[in-house]
């Protein structure tokens, strides 16, 4: 084992590997920071380059893109209020208000450090417990997945903002949007009205960019001139306090560890991914907080939870891949392809047959997260400089990036029409004070729920299986508790409000 460890370390710490990894890290961060450009896209671009590299070298470079990509989304989320990747939706909730409140440097530093610790915690779990965790993950059938998604849907309650009713409506709109296009099981068209544009469905990323980016950018245009910051999105006095922030992150150990564990768990389930982990970690942090009303106004806990949660899926996602050779996402599939091209078969025997490679990947994960940290800390000033650019330049530039990214996703022109239409819908909803996150949550979770419900009933026509399989039953019970908890807190809030109004009446 020590031999393999040293052999792996020897390869990762080669000078050229480190240089390539540094480039990969920067590329991942930049790609993720631009709304519309995805990490998958950045990794697929590196794939042909890795054909010419040693297997471990190639995978190390890809891992640095991957880790960088889970952090980069934070930058646009905090500075522009636009999630740079699907995994940073919840990051906008608190990092953006914090940045707007005059602490953009703190918001970024908090996010970067939380991402760093999240990645490290997930890598440690990956190293220590990958095989048993992967075995549990693989046993989960469609019943457990469906119940998990039902549970995840209950977090809508945390995302509703000012009105429970409007939040629920937004969630239902999201679920509805997700049904357009080919049905996930048979590929039969649904609600497409024979239109070429709707034929491929509404891709999740197009909805995300349309709903968040376009509405946010239009909002920026709308309040131009009224803003006190004289055209710049963020005030210019910036303090980083890098080390102070690191201590601040470590002062929230419970939140950090809980969020990272959620990230690892969700990451280890093939098909779920960082976007769910990001929202779920945020939700759990809000619910267990003593001051839930601070969430959404720029509380450090919100930033820590969302960023530790999404970054921890990096290590979690590698669990089924390294332990069993089962890809959990497109990124994992590309990583596996990069190994297989070199004749390395990826499967349950990878750790035994190619131990140096497996250990090398663990080391590469740690090195990649350190690189991400260094790159981010050093370049933060540069990113913040971006916000000095007057709005009339930054808004169109970001808009163009969104459009290019949306096109590059599937290389379909029709996606751009969809983007425009969804952007208008998003802007309309936002103007009417509808929260947008529940809509996106519906679009993410709807298809997963449908696929697994249908799969479960195809495997066994009996509905009671959902309650007799233990993990599924526990998840459904958790969902029920979550709903009860939410109703209670809504009632409590209402009572409080009424009390306040009564007092006012008394005056």
């Amino acid at each position: 084992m020590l031999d393999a460890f040293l052999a792996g370390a020897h390869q990762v710490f080669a000078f050229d590997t480190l240089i390539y990894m540094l480039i990969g890290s920067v590329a991942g961060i930049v790609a993720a920071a631009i709304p519309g450009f995805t990490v998958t896209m950045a990794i697929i671009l590196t794939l042909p380059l890795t054909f010419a590299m040693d297997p471990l070298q190639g995978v190390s470079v890809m891992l640095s893109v991957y880790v960088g990509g889970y952090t980069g989304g934070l930058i646009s989320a905090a500075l522009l209020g636009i999630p740079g990747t699907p995994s940073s939706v919840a990051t906008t909730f608190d990092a953006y208000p914090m940045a707007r409140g005059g602490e953009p440097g703190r918001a970024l530093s908090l996010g970067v450090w939380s991402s760093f610790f999240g990645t490290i915690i997930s890598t440690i779990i990956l190293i220590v417990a990958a095989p048993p965790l992967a075995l549990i993950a693989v046993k989960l059938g469609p019943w457990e997945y469906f119940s998990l998604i039902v549970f995840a849907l209950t977090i809508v309650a945390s995302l509703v903002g000012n009105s429970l009713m409007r939040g629920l409506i937004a969630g239902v709109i999201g679920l509805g949007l997700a049904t357009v296009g080919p049905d996930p099981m048979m590929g039969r068209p649904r609600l497409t009205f024979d239109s070429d544009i709707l034929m491929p469905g509404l891709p999740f990323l197009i909805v995300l960019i349309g709903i968040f980016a376009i509405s946010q950018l239009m909002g920026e245009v709308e309040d131009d001139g009224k803003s006190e910051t004289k055209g710049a999105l963020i005030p210019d006095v910036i303090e980083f306090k890098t080390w102070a922030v690191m201590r601040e992150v470590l002062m929230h150990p419970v939140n950090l560890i809980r969020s990272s564990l959620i990230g690892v768990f969700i990451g280890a389930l093939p098909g779920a991914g960082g976007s769910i982990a990001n929202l779920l970690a945020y939700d759990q942090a809000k619910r267990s907080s003593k001051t839930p009303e601070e969430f959404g106004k720029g509380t450090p806990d919100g930033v820590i939870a969302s960023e530790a949660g999404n970054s921890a899926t990096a290590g979690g996602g590698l669990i089924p891949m390294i332990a069993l050779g089962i890809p959990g996402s497109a990124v994992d599939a590309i990583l596996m392809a990069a190994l297989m091209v070199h004749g390395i078969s990826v499967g349950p025997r990878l750790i035994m047959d190619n131990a140096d490679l497996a250990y090398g990947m663990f080391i590469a994960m740690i090195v990649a997260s350190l690189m991400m940290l260094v790159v981010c800390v050093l370049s933060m000033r540069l990113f913040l400089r971006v916000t000095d650019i007057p709005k009339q330049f930054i808004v169109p530039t970001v808009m163009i990036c969104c459009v290019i990214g949306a096109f590059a996703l599937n290389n379909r022109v029709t996606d751009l029409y969809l983007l425009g239409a969804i952007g208008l819908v998003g802007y309309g909803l936002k103007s009417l004070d509808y929260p947008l996150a529940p809509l996106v949550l519906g679009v993410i979770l709807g298809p997963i729920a449908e696929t697994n419900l249908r799969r479960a009933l195809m495997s066994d026509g009996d509905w009671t299986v959902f309650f007799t399989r233990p993990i599924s039953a526990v998840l459904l019970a958790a969902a029920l508790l979550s709903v009860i908890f939410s109703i209670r807190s809504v009632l409590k809030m209402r009572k409080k409000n009424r009390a306040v109004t009564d007092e006012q009446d008394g005056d």
Partner: protein
Amino acid sequence: MFRKIAVAAGLMAAAIAGPAQAQDYPTKPIEFIVPWGPGGGSDTQMRLVAQGLAEETGQAVPVINMPGVGGNVGLAEFAKRPADGYTISQIHEGLLISNGTGITDLNWDSFMPIALVTSSPQYLTLSKNDNFSTFEEMVAYAKEHPGAVRAGVTLAGVPHLHMAMIEDAFDIQFSYVGYEGTGQRIRALVGGNIDVAIGDVSSAGQFVENGDLIFAAVGMPERTAEEPDVRTFKELGQDLDLAVTRGVVLPKGTPQDVADALEAHLEKVMQNEDVRTKIKNVGSEPVFLGQDAYKAYLGKLSETVNRLVGKLAG
């Protein structure tokens, strides 16, 4: 008579215009539309072919992923591209099935098939369960309990066709559970959520070696070099050809000399040792069937699909 003149005229035209074009082709980068997402079998294998083609022709061959509706979005877009040889694409069995089940109007003969380049042998893979551990036991169990054997397939996809071929040949009945992609099916098989599935060496080989899964039979004319102990369907009494074959196509109406030039380039690519090794490494077999042989293959496949399509539409 008229036809002969037409052919002669055509040949003359080709003789005048052709050589200049064919010798020069390609003079600019060739766009390779892969109608599937990144990271899958088609994507990985076609990237290797694209890289070989770029080396061979000296022109860049950028791969453009255009996923959606089981490959049909990318192919629909490809069909509209100029037929000049500078946009190429890839098809496999899935297109014929999509056509048969009415998801798309396009079929293999909507394009100019140029060369079949890879063929991935498919194995009938069994989970570890109490009821059967060999092919014969599985058939016997399925005959005794019709519909009790849960088969994981991509509904109305290639694995569904393969399973339907097995049902048809051995007169048994599975109940189908829909999964997307080989990775998902193998995971469900390992987790015991389904009983049988179609797998391949790259995704399931190590599980078999580990004793977690069983390769019951292989759908090739002869046993494969990777799994010499796994019997063919032919040995089991029914000659079934279960492979996922991927070939390069051009839009219909491309000049024949351009097609011939591309065919010649691809033939050289498929002899390139580096490309061959890498394709084998990702679990497929490098092969080469030129235009005529490829068309004949697709024609025969089309008959099988049409015969079994009723089973797939449900």
